């Protein structure tokens, strides 16, 4: 990434034609830092037993959520797998409420009922984290179907891991999205592993984008460590989606942590060296370099921003700590929605 690349990429950004302003570039960095610091605190809170169950961190993949959601309008829809803390934060769910949800508190964005894998925010069109691999891909198509049905102009961004490409739901959803010309962008975050399994061990072809061809769908391969590249590719895909042309983006990224908090960072399935090597592609380091080299931010400004984000995250932990559990009665609430049409 260099200023030139960033500018050039931005020029290619499709209908918007926007070159990202310095302010927006700073905003992107802030979001990426927010995710990073948030996830670090989540790891701590998990170790302390404040968070339970499965907790999948986003460290290493920040540029994907940040770059892609930057291409959205506020009323566009987002839907994710269980690895969705990053998207939730970028979409604007306050860190307080995300952390509170991770801790199962009543103030959590799912009122303590969902947990790490099931963050929801209906008002912000954040359509959830979902736990069954591939299960939310048809939901994304359905949301896009709803938009189109009502004559809306929104799109739906759908995030999933590369391992989901091997499951039937992915294919059924892609086909129908293409047949019905739905405003949806499928973002495959290819971090090379599904849990402890390298993609090439379980996929006949590791070229995810190839699948788009079977559905007569546009596709793209994107460097997921480059937030601008992700932004550009998503801008294009979103513009097409608004015209009823879905796209499948394969975004190449890497997860710097274990699959979930209960899994090892490395081991039989990947080496320590590989992880170290990959960390040299840290998307946050790349962006700070770029901003520093281009003179957009100096080291002091970057550190100040980081401190600001750390404070926000500390506050989120405090908020979660001090928040109450749901009332015992909540156990029986919301099994069914009240009322009728």
């Amino acid at each position, binding site marked *: 990434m260099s200023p030139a690349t960033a500018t050039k990429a931005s020029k290619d950004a499709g209908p918007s034609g926007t070159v990202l302003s310095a302010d927006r570039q700073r905003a992107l960095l802030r979001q990426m830092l927010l995710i990073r610091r948030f996830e670090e605190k989540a790891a701590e809170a998990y170790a302390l037993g404040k968070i339970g169950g499965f907790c999948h961190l986003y460290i290493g993949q920040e540029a994907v959520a940040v770059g892609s959601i930057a291409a959205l309008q506020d009323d566009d*829809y987002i*839907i994710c797998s269980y690895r969705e803390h990053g998207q939730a934060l970028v979409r604007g769910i306050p860190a307080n409420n995300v952390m509170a949800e991770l801790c199962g508190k009543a103030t*959590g*964005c*799912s*009122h*303590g*009922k*969902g947990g790490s894998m*099931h963050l*929801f*925010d*209906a008002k912000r069109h954040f*359509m*959830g984290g*979902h*736990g*069954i691999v591939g*299960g*939310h*891909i*048809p*939901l*994304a*198509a*359905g*949301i*896009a*179907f*709803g*938009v189109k*049905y*009502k004559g809306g102009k929104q799109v739906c961004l759908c995030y999933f891991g590369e391992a989901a490409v091997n499951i*039937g*739901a992915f*294919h*059924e*959803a892609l*086909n*129908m999205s293409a*047949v*019905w010309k739905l405003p949806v962008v499928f973002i495959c975050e290819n971090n090379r592993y599904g849990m402890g399994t390298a993609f090439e061990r379980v996929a006949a072809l590791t070229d995810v984008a190839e699948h788009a061809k079977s559905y007569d769908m546009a596709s793209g391969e994107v460097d997921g460590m480059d937030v601008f590249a992700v932004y550009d590719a998503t801008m294009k895909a979103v513009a097409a989606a608004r015209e009823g042309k879905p796209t499948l983006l394969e975004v190449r990224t890497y997860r710097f942590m274990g699959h979930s908090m209960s899994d090892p960072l490395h081991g039989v399935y990947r080496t320590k060296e590989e992880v170290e090597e990959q960390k040299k592609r840290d998307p946050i380091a790349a962006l700070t370099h770029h901003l520093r080299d281009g003179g957009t931010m100096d080291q002091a400004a970057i550190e100040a921003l980081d401190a600001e984000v750390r404070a926000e995250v500390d506050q989120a932990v405090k908020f979660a700590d001090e928040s109450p559990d749901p009332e015992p009665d909540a156990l029986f*609430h*919301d*099994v*069914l*929605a*009240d*009322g*009728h*049409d």
Partner: protein
Amino acid sequence: MPTLTYRDALNQALREEMQRDPNVFLMGEEVGLYQGAYKVSRGLLEEFGPQRVVDTPIAELGFAGIGVGAAMTGLRPVVEFMTWNFAVLALDQIVNSAAKMNYMSGGQFPMPIVFRGPNGAALQLGAQHSQAWESWLAHIPGLKVVAPATPADAKGLLKSAIRDNNPVIVLEGEMLYNTKGEVPDGELVIPIGQADIKRPGNDVTLICHSKTVTVALKAADLLQEAGVSAEVIDLRSLRPLDEAAIIQSVTKTNRCVVVEEGWHHCGVGAQVVDIIQRDAFDHLDAPVLRVTQADVPMPYNKALERAAKSSPEKVVAAARRVLYLD
């Protein structure tokens, strides 16, 4: 009152609800151009157009999920499964997405969706096409499950299902589509969760639903000939169950037989028995007996299939046993 087939009653319910609310749409295999595999959706494509009557590929898991996603945006999808046999492929979306979305989002995503289609055996369709899924579906909190037996109930319950803000499973019956009955014109909304006394009686309660209502009614006729007065309770709704109606009848008759189409082990009847022995223990003069499908995959051969299914004769035999007549 006009007489309609069960099929046309469902068609009327769909049509009226689609006229009433532009957010209601129908999707499924062959529902549009082909007018429905069983013609339940006849004429709807012509009236409402392809945006609201959507032919899908054969992809039950996918289109069930698309329905759920659409419901998340406030639409009221009616998802037709050509038969419930194929819906087994879509259970992940029904159970993990539709039934849990409102709960796990802390109440942010009500799920106004209907999944419907014919359930259970027809005639000689063999093992893979003859399955009654009601006990599986009724097991799941977050769903409502109805199984209408008559044209009027079909219309009234489907309308309720479409208006409900929760996922409602509507179990129809291929063998019911041609049956006829009186159906009030226009507004007919039957609340979900109410059983119906299809025939009053005093000596024994026969509990049934869907296709077994006819079986129980025939059994009641046969019992009448032997001087036994049977009360026939049609559950209509399997989740929630109308426990009060069940208990009230058994408290009166003190004896009960539960008939269902599906398999015995962990069937709907087991739950009904559980409720009765729990809440009417002191009123029971005999154990409750059950009549179900034989505990086998459905055979193709006609005679074997007939032997596998519940029948009036089997119900009569069970009733005579709880009456200690044999």
